[in-house]
Each structure stands twice: as structure tokens, then as C-alpha cells.
């Protein structure tokens, strides 16, 4: 325990900043990723075969590519194509793309749980198909995906550790641990503190997700 308290004296503020950066990266990539995933889901429903095909390929690519491979491609290969993206936006872009693909996948599953009779009823009331999607199907689908989206958010939070693979100006938790472990012998204590921060963040997200789920779930 002595190791941990000495570490917190030396690196306490650094850990605070690292935790904040981890949270920031998580939030900044989840929100656009979620919105993009929703757009992809709706566009995939439209009866436009070329669009459907391209979006299915999009989802399969970003669901199956390892995020770190994607990040390395964006950071090191895109400059050769004259596309320059700064490190932090590159991390956020990587995580958003991956998040959007998984969101699209989960939302599609959520849509499948909405009984078809509802869409038929809405159509027979004279609603346009797009209105049926946005007003009847999507709100119910969103309520059913709270739990998988919570898991996705936690996975995304853990994935921000790959930001340690590029020279970000600030350090997030994993980068900080690797720096402390290289500089000093306090690696174990640093790891314990960082791990505790990750675990507590994950538990908080999980608790928030469960609370939301209880509020919005539809019992069928």
C-alpha cells in the first residue's frame, strides 16, 4: 500500500488528468458513433439495393477490423494519401467508426423485436414508411438496445487504451501506466491505480445503463 500512496503523491494529478482524458475520448467517440450508427440503420432499411450493399460492407468491415489496425492505418497510412488527421481526432474517428458499426448491428436486432403488426397498423393509418420508422419502430427499438449499448460503451471506454499507441499530447490511463513503468519501478502500483479507475468507470457505466434500462424497457 505504501507504493500506491507514494505514487499518488508523485503522479496524483497526472492520474486525474489521464482519467479525464479517457472519459473525454470515450464520450467524444460514443456520441458521433451512436448517431452515425442510427443513420446507417435507417438508410439500410430503404429499398435502395446499391446503398444497402455498400452499408452492409461498411458495417462488416468496421465490425471485424481490429480497432488498433484501423487506428494505425488512419495515423500512418493516410498521410501517404495526403490525408492528414491529428492524433486525437484520429483516435476519436477510429472509435466512432467501430462504434457506429456495432450500433447499426445492435439496432437492427432491436428493430427485429418490434412486432411487424405495429408497422402494418401504422401504414394502414396512412403514415409514410419513413414516418413509421422514425415514429413507431425506432423509438421502441432504441428502448430494447439499452443493455447491449451499455456493454458497447464499456468496451469503447476500454478501447480508448489504444490511444497509447499514438503520441497524443496528453496521456490517457494506459499511456500513463506504460510511461511510469518505463521511468520508475512503481509499475505495479501504477497498474493497480489505473485498473481501479477503469473498473470503477466500467461499473458506473454499467449501473447507469441498468437504471436506464429499468426506466425504458418494454415488457412484452
Amino acid at each position, binding site marked *: 500500500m505504501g507504493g500506491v500512496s507514494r505514487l499518488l503523491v508523485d503522479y496524483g494529478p497526472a492520474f486525474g488528468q489521464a482519467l479525464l482524458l479517457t472519459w473525454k475520448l470515450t464520450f467524444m467517440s460514443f456520441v458521433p458513433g451512436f448517431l452515425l450508427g442510427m443513420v446507417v440503420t435507417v438508410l439500410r*432499411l430503404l*429499398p*435502395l*439495393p*446499391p*446503398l444497402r450493399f*455498400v452499408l452492409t460492407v461498411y458495417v*462488416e*468491415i468496421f*465490425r*471485424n*477490423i*481490429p*480497432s*488498433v*489496425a*484501423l487506428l*494505425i*492505418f488512419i495515423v*500512418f*497510412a493516410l498521410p*501517404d*494519401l*495526403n*490525408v492528414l488527421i491529428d492524433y486525437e481526432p484520429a483516435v476519436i474517428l477510429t472509435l466512432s467508426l467501430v462504434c457506429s458499426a456495432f450500433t447499426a448491428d445492435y439496432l437492427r436486432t432491436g*428493430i*427485429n423485436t*418490434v412486432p*411487424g403488426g405495429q*408497422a*402494418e397498423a401504422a*401504414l394502414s393509418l396512412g403514415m409514410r*414508411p419513413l414516418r*413509421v*420508422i422514425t415514429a413507431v*419502430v425506432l423509438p421502441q427499438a432504441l428502448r430494447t438496445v439499452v443493455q447491449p449499448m451499455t456493454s458497447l460503451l*464499456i468496451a469503447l471506454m*476500454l478501447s*480508448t*487504451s*489504444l490511444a*497509447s*499507441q499514438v503520441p497524443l499530447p496528453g496521456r490517457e*490511463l*494506459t499511456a500513463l*501506466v*506504460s510511461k511510469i*513503468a*518505463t521511468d520508475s*519501478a512503481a*509499475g*505495479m502500483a501504477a*497498474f493497480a491505480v*489505473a*485498473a481501479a479507475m*477503469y*473498473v470503477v*468507470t*466500467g*461499473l458506473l457505466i454499467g449501473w447507469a445503463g441498468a437504471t436506464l434500462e429499468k426506466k425504458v424497457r418494454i415488457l412484452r
Partner: protein
Amino acid sequence: MSRSLENILFGAPSPQAQTVTRVVSGVAAVVLLLMAAAVVFRFHSAGQLEPRLWEFFARPTTWAFLGKGLLGTLASAAMAAVIALSLGLVLLLGRLARPRLVRWPSIAVIEFLRGTPTLLLIYVCFLVLPQVGIKLSTYWMLTLPVALSTSAVVAEVYRAGVLAVPRGQTQAARSLGMTEAQVFFHIVFPQALRYIVPALVAQLVIVVKDTTFGYVVTYGELMQNAKVLIANYNSLVPVYLVVAALYCLVNYAISRASKRLGRPVY
């Protein structure tokens, strides 16, 4: 009978809607093709389509080297999966055990391993363990952390499966005089496995993805070999593209297999 939402919404279009759909489809196709053309042009104008950058893909040695990397990836992933499946079972048994002295530590271990990023565990094996005198080979520096973090997730997947087995099964087996261990291993767990095969195979995709971090510890997996190829042939974009495609293909194949396994057994 259940129809898909697409079918309900757009299944019986009016002649007018049919025309509109066709026109919009055509426009969408043209726009998407234009975008693809723009990407190709981008490659061309950046000089990335020069044959010098691609010609070494015609040599069998290149593919042999990439194949070796892929084998390294799969060797690490397979070992990690085996460890995770068995360790996950141990953690599950601890999690379900009645004595608190066993149950609470198991829960703590599961939450800890599930809640920390694999990359952080890899850094611990890579940077911290040597400080305390534990030296692992690069293979284990990658495989062990991946296996540990997966085992916790697998334990939770197992638990979901076990809880999904109807209680009557346990009660019936108990009333036949089977011991608790017999009930678990002969009645509950085999049925639980049936429910969770798709989730387990999906976990395999995550294991393959996690082994990408092998280049951190310089273990010779696909990503690491890609970096070597890049250094040798000075061809960055093509190699990364090919490697990304290989990863996608492997994981896509596993995902498809999991969908197939996920179909109900009658």
C-alpha cells in the same frame, strides 16, 4: 409468420413509388461509384498506385511471410481461447459457489479482468513483470493477457447460459438423487453450452482482434510481420490495406460460422 420490416414498409410499392425507387437507386449507385472513383484517384494522385509499391505482392515469399504472421496470430488466439474457456469455467464455478469466501474473490477477479483493457494487461506483462523478475516469452506476453481478460468475459457468458437453463431441470435431477456436481456437469452445463455457442464464437472474434497488439511486444503475428514488410519494401499503404483485409476476412469467416452455429438445433 413474420415479415421483415423492409418487406412490410416497401414490399408492395405503387407503380409511382417503383419508378421513384428505381431513379433514386440509380442516382445512389452513380454517387457511390463516383466516391469510389474519387478514392482511386486519390491513390493515383498520391502516387500509391505505382507498380513499384505493389509488385512484391506477386512474390510467393511475401505471402509466405504474411501467412506466417497469420499463423502466429491464430496460434496465439487459439491458445488464448483454450485457456479462456477453461479458466472461465473455473471462475464460473467460483462465482456460483455457495461459500462467500470463494464467491466474493471470484466476483472480484471477474470484475477486475473484465474491467481492465487488454492492452493495459499486456503492458503489465511486458513492462512491469520483468521488474519483479518474471520473464515471459513474447508469445506468452501476448497470449496470457488476452486469455485472462477473455476468461472473465467467458465466465459471464457461461453464467448467462447456466441461468437460462430452466430450474425444473436442476430440481428433477436433484430429486433423482444426483449430487450437485453431477447435476451441474451432466444436466445444466451441457444445455447451457447450447444457448451460448454464438456468444462464445463472437468472443473468438474479439480474441483474434486483441492479438493485434502482438506488435507491442514484438511477437511475430500479422501486424508485426506487416511492419517488417513495410520496412523492407518501403510500401506502407498497400501492406496495411492487405493486412486489414486479411483481418476482416478471418473475423468475418468466424462471425459467419457463429451465425450458422446459432441456428436452433431440433
